[in-house]
């Protein structure tokens, strides 16, 4: 068992690190497919990448119910670290979660099991944060939509392999839908519900 004192630390400078991390995530969301770096470093419990940890410290709190996939939830350190540093309540029911943390994309449940928002309040949806292997190797994807000047190309090695096929539900659901944030180490890419993706194959 890890004691609280032994938990990896949060941000050294809470205020400025959160601001810097937020700007990276905001830029990622505003420019889908672009790879943004998260600069400030916090300690991260095993299973959690440092980018994910920084995002958690920046956006999670008592007001954001949090759903953890089995990979994240099985680590006592992850749950303890999240509780201590963010206070976000961990929920079993993914359909009421503000955020979902997915450590094992291969076991990502159907997006329909998350909150999709309502017609009146499409913002009441789960933002799904998925840790992936890399933005430097893997398949190529062509992205279009708001935030993109024409076409953006994203290279990424992602699990589940059919992530973008699954995200096609966003087309029919809009303005309801799921926003996805992909994290690979300290790099982050956002795929908001408006982004349309075609695989380039290779």
């Amino acid at each position: 068992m890890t004691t609280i004192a032994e938990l990896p630390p949060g941000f050294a400078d809470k205020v400025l690190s959160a601001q810097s991390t937020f700007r990276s995530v905001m830029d990622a969301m505003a420019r889908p497919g672009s790879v943004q770096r998260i600069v400030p470093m916090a300690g991260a419990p095993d299973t959690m990448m440092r980018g994910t940890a920084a995002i958690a410290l920046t956006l999670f709190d008592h007001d954001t119910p949090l759903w953890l996939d089995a990979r994240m939830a099985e680590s006592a350190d992850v749950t303890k670290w999240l509780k201590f540093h963010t206070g976000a309540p961990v929920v079993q029911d993914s359909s009421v979660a503000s955020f979902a943390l997915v450590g094992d994309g291969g076991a990502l449940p159907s997006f329909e099991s998350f909150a999709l928002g309502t017609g009146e309040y499409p913002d009441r949806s789960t933002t799904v944060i998925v840790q992936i292997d890399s933005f430097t190797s893997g398949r190529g994807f062509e992205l279009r939509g708001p935030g993109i000047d024409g076409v953006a190309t994203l290279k990424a090695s992602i699990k589940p392999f059919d992530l973008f096929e699954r995200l096609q539900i966003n087309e029919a659901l809009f303005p309801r839908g799921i926003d996805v944030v992909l994290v690979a180490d300290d790099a982050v890419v956002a795929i908001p519900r408006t982004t349309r993706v075609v695989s380039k194959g290779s």
Partner: protein
Amino acid sequence: MNAPAYNFAYLDEQTKRMIRRAILKAIAIPGYQVPFASREMPMPYGWGTGGVQVTAAILGPQDVLKVIDQGSDDTTNAISIRKFFAKTAGVATTTATAEATVIQTRHRIPERALNENQVLVYQVPIPEPLRFLEPRETETRRMHALAEYGLMHVKLYEDIARFGHIATAYAYPVRVNARYVMDPSPTPKFDNPKMDNCPALQLFGAGREKRIYAIPPYTQVVSLDFEDHPFEPYRFNAPCALCGAENSYLDEIVTDDKGGRMFVCSDTDYCEGRQAAGHYGSLSAAPYREKAGSHG
């Protein structure tokens, strides 16, 4: 007595998190008004508290902030807001549009084209474009959910029937990404085309009405109109009397009580820049002598 101590950029971290989450949703759903628990700010509601909260949530020490009201950096409310952030966040401020990374504005979009490294933050009094047609939030929310915008078209069409034109000169409604009808804030309709496919991120904050909305970069923004009555941006047909610009939005200055008028750029930075580059209007005004950045 507890002497108040304030955080970087005034807002506490919990409030910033809440606003930041709202901003992310706003970007993900272009033109949709995200409700947020707006805080009481140390300036009155209606004076830019929404814009100030958005700016406070995004601003960092590397940013360079510009604040304009009516296109000018030197209007009293712009000065007051700029000083607020210079004091609470210690950020660098500028009047030069090109140097700014964050621009907070009331009622204008700068003339100079914005770039990808900039965020434009609008102060919004009434975020709901349908509000003057339907005062109830429950109703307007339903109309947005169903994309039921017939009422707005009827209103615009009634204008045409009565006046021969759409009689909306500012806060002219737009449709964002072919989905949400959105209030661009009370900018003159002259500025509407600048919102379309803009490289900069545009964020809108309505403090009293507790709404945040956004237009991501490179997003389609169309001013509502009819095929036989297309949208026309209004501009007084004259060059700027100070810099000779033919394509800027103009303020009308009353020069005497005998009907004397002159027209000068509303965007003071744009006008000064043109004068510094040697452009002169019919009235050869002295170029500005103040040093840039002298407003702390």
